[in-house]
C-alpha cells in the first residue's frame, strides 16, 4: 500500500490535512467541478501552455491542474529543505571537482568513464573557473515519499530545469479559486521566487555593478517551455532574448536594443549546451550566440546554469551521489537515494533482466518519462521488447525498484480519490548561499494506479502548501 499523505492506515485524517478535510465536507462535487472548469479557463486564457514534442504549432496544451493542495507541515519541510540544500551543495562541489582537480576520480569514488565518455561532460569547461564557483544556480530536485519519515531523491535536474511557472501559476489559481481554504491556513509564500531568482542571477555577475544587465535566453516560441520563459522574464523584469538579439564583440556580449547595443552581464539561458554557440558546439545551431563561449571563458559574462552541468545529473551519476556527498562534503546525506542497479555492471544487468516485472528501468540520459519501462505495468511483450534494447546497450540504462509513491487526495471523475505524487522543489544558489522557496511543484499522476507524473504522459499539477504552525 502506498503512503497516504492525508489519511492514516486507520482512516483518520492526519493533522496537516484537517483543514482540507473539513473544507471538503462543505463543498459539493458540483462546486468543485465548476471551480475546476474555471481554473482550466484561466489557464487557457492566460496561454499557460506547453508544447508536446513532435506536435507542430497547433500543439499547445495545458497541464491539468488539480485544485486540492498538497500539504506539507513546516517540520516536514524544514527537514526536506536541509536535505535539498546539502544535495545542491554536493552537486556544485562535484562539478567544481570534475572540471578541476578530479579528486573524486583519483580516489575511485566515481569510475572515470562516467566523466570522460559522458556526452554531457564538456571538455571545453576543463580548468575554467566559473564565476563565484557556482555551476548550478537553478536546480530542480525531484523527491518522493514512500512513508511518513523519509524523502527520497528520484532525480537531480541540474541543466535547465523547468516547471517553476506551474508552481507559481498553481498558487495564483489557489488565491483566485480557493481563497476560503487558503485563508484558513498559514501558507508559506512562494510568490517571491522571481525576485529570489533575479537576486541570485545578479549576485553572480562577473563585474561588480550595482545593477547588472540580466537577460533570459530562450529558443523561442516553438519551445515546449516558452510560456515559462516569457513568464519568468516578465516577473523578473528582464528582457527575454533569442540568440539573434545578442552578439559578441571582442569577447563581450551585447544585446541589440532600440537604443543601441547594451552590454549583457548575466544570461539565464534556457537553451541546451549543444546549441549555445555554433563556433564551439553544434555548428548547425541557429538558436545560440556565436562567440558566446569565448566571452564566457574570458570572464565577461555569466551563464546560469554553467555549461556541462549534465555530467552531474544523469541517472548513472545519481547512484554515486551518497558517496560523493560523504567524500566531498564530509557529511552524511540527509536525503535518501533510491537503490539503483547500474546495468553496465554485468551482475546488475543479469539481476535486472531476471526481475524486470518488479523494476522501473530508465535511460541514463532520458527525461520526461520517455524511454522508460515501468515493469509492473508493462505487458509481457513490452518487457520482452525492452529487454532486447537493454541488452544491446546496457550502459545506457539503470533500474530501480518500483516505488509506491505517496498519494494525495485529488479531484477526479469518481470524486475525491488518492493519486500518486512527486515533488520538484527549486533550489537557487547564488554568491550569498542557497535559497529555496518553501514548497515546489507537485506533480500528480491523474490516472488511477499510474506512477508516471510527467506532464507529457498524463500527469497534472497541484499547488504545494507548506503550512506554518
Amino acid at each position, binding site marked *: 500500500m502506498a503512503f497516504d499523505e492525508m489519511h492514516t492506515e486507520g482512516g483518520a485524517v492526519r493533522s496537516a490535512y484537517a483543514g482540507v478535510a473539513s473544507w471538503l465536507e462543505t463543498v459539493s462535487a458540483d462546486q468543485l467541478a465548476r471551480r475546476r472548469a474555471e481554473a482550466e479557463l484561466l489557464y487557457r486564457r492566460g496561454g499557460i501552455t506547453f508544447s508536446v514534442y513532435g506536435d507542430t504549432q497547433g500543439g499547445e496544451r495545458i497541464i491539468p491542474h488539480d485544485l486540492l493542495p498538497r500539504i506539507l507541515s513546516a517540520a516536514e519541510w524544514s527537514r526536506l529543505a536541509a536535505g535539498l540544500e546539502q544535495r545542491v551543495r554536493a552537486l556544485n562541489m562535484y562539478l567544481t571537482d570534475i572540471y578541476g582537480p578530479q579528486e573524486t576520480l583519483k580516489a575511485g569514488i566515481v569510475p*572515470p*568513464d562516467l566523466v*570522460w*565518455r559522458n*556526452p554531457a561532460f564538456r*571538455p*571545453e*569547461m*576543463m*580548468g*575554467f573557473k566559473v564565476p563565484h564557483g557556482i555551476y548550478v544556480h537553478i536546480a530542480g530536485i525531484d523527491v518522493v515519499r514512500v512513508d511518513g519519515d523519509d524523502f527520497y531523491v528520484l532525480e537531480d535536474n541540474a541543466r535547465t530545469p523547468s516547471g517553476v511557472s506551474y508552481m507559481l501559476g498553481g498558487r495564483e489559481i489557489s488565491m483566485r479559486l480557493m481563497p476560503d481554504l487558503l485563508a484558513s491556513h498559514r501558507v508559506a509564500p512562494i510568490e517571491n521566487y522571481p525576485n529570489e531568482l533575479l537576486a541570485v542571477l545578479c549576485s553572480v555577475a562577473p563585474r561588480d555593478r550595482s545593477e547588472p544587465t540580466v537577460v533570459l535566453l530562450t529558443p523561442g516560441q516553438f519551445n515546449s517551455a516558452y510560456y515559462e520563459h516569457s513568464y519568468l522574464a516578465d516577473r523578473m523584469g528582464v528582457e527575454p532574448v533569442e540568440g539573434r538579439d545578442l*552578439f*559578441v*564583440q*571582442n*569577447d563581450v556580449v551585447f544585446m541589440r536594443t532600440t537604443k543601441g547595443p547594451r552590454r549583457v552581464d548575466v544570461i539565464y539561458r534556457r537553451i541546451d549546451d549543444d546549441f549555445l554557440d*555554433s*563556433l*564551439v558546439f553544434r*555548428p*548547425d545551431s541557429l538558436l545560440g550566440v*556565436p*562567440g558566446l563561449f*569565448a566571452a564566457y*571563458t*574570458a570572464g565577461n559574462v555569466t551563464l546560469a546554469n554553467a555549461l556541462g552541468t549534465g555530467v552531474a545529473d544523469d541517472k548513472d551519476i545519481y547512484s554515486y551521489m551518497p558517496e560523493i556527498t560523504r567524500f566531498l562534503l564530509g557529511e552524511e546525506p540527509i536525503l535518501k537515494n533510491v537503490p539503483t542497479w547500474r546495468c553496465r555492471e554485468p551482475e546488475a544487468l543479469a539481476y535486472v533482466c531476471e526481475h524486470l516485472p518488479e523494476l522501473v528501468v530508465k535511460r541514463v540520459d532520458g527525461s520526461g518519462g520517455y524511454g522508460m519501462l515501468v515493469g509492473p505495468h508493462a505487458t509481457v511483450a513490452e518487457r520482452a521488447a525492452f529487454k532486447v534494447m537493454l541488452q544491446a546497450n546496457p550502459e545506457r540504462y539503470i533500474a530501480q525498484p518500483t516505488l509506491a509513491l505517496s498519494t494525495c487526495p485529488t479531484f477526479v471523475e469518481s470524486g475525491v480519490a488518492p493519486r500518486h505524487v512527486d515533488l520538484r522543489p527549486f533550489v537557487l544558489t547564488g554568491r550569498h548561499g542557497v535559497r529555496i522557496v518553501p514548497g515546489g511543484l507537485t506533480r500528480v499522476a491523474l490516472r488511477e494506479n499510474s506512477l508516471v507524473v510527467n506532464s507529457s504522459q498524463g500527469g497534472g499539477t497541484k499547488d504545494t502548501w507548506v503550512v506554518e504552525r
Partner: protein
Amino acid sequence: MRIAIQHRTQYSYDTPARSIIQMLRLTPRSHEGQTVHRWHVEVDQDADLRAGEDAFGNIMHVLSLPGPVDSLTLSLHGEVETAGADGIVRGTVERFPPRLFLRETPLTGVNPDLRAYADAVVRGATGTLDRLHALMNAIRADIAFDTSPTNVTTTAAEAFTLKRGVCQDLTHVFIACARDAGIPARYIGGHLYRSDGAILQEAGHAWAEAYVEELGWVGFDPANGVCVTDSYVRVSAGLDYLGAAPVRGTRMGGTSERMSVDVRVNQASFQSQS
C-alpha cells in the same frame, strides 16, 4: 626539415556582411620534433584578434569584425623545423588523459556496417600497433580519395558507405574504428610537405593520432598510408574535425560569400633568404 608555410584565405561578399566572428586554430605549437621558428597571423581589415588557448591546448584566435565588411583576407606565414620520430609524438600539450579520446562524437560514431568492418580488419592483428596499421592500410585501400561527394558535415559512417572522401573523411573513419576497438584516437589538423613537389595546395591536411600504451601518441595518415614523418606540421588536435577545425566562423548579413584558400608548403631553404 625546415618547412615554410603560407596560408591565405580570402572572403568576399556581394553585399557587405554586418559583422563577422571566427575562431581560428591556425597556429602550431612546438613540441619534441617540431620547433616553430616564426609564425604570423595577419588580417587585412581593422579587427579584434585575441589569442588564447582552447581546452585541448590548441592556440586559438578569436577574430571579430564589427563590419560592414565586403572582403576579408586572412594570411598566415611561418617556418617550422621538424625532425622525424617514427610517427611517435612527444612533448605535446596534454590536458586530458588518453581515455577521453574514446568519446564518440556525432562525426565519429560507428554504425553496424562500420563496426563489422572495424572488427574484421583488426581481428587478425595482434597488439595495438599492429591493429592500427591494419586499420590504416585497410582504410587507404577501401576508401578512394575523392573531393566531390563529401563536405565538412559528412560523418565517418556516411563516408564509409560512400567508400569515398578526402583526408578528413578517412581520418574520421580511422578514429571511429579505433575508438570502437577501444583505442583512444584523435583528429589532427596541419600541413604536409609533399615529396612530389606539389607546393600549392587547396587546403591543409588532416590525419589521426592513436594512443599506444607502451609508446604514447602515434600519428597515422590514412590518406597516405604512412605514420607521420618530418614532412608533417602538426597544428591542432581535437576529438574530430569540429574540435580541430582551422576556421569556424559565422557572419551576420552579407550575401553570396565567396571563399578561396591558398596554401603553400615548401622547404624553407628553397625560398629566397633576405
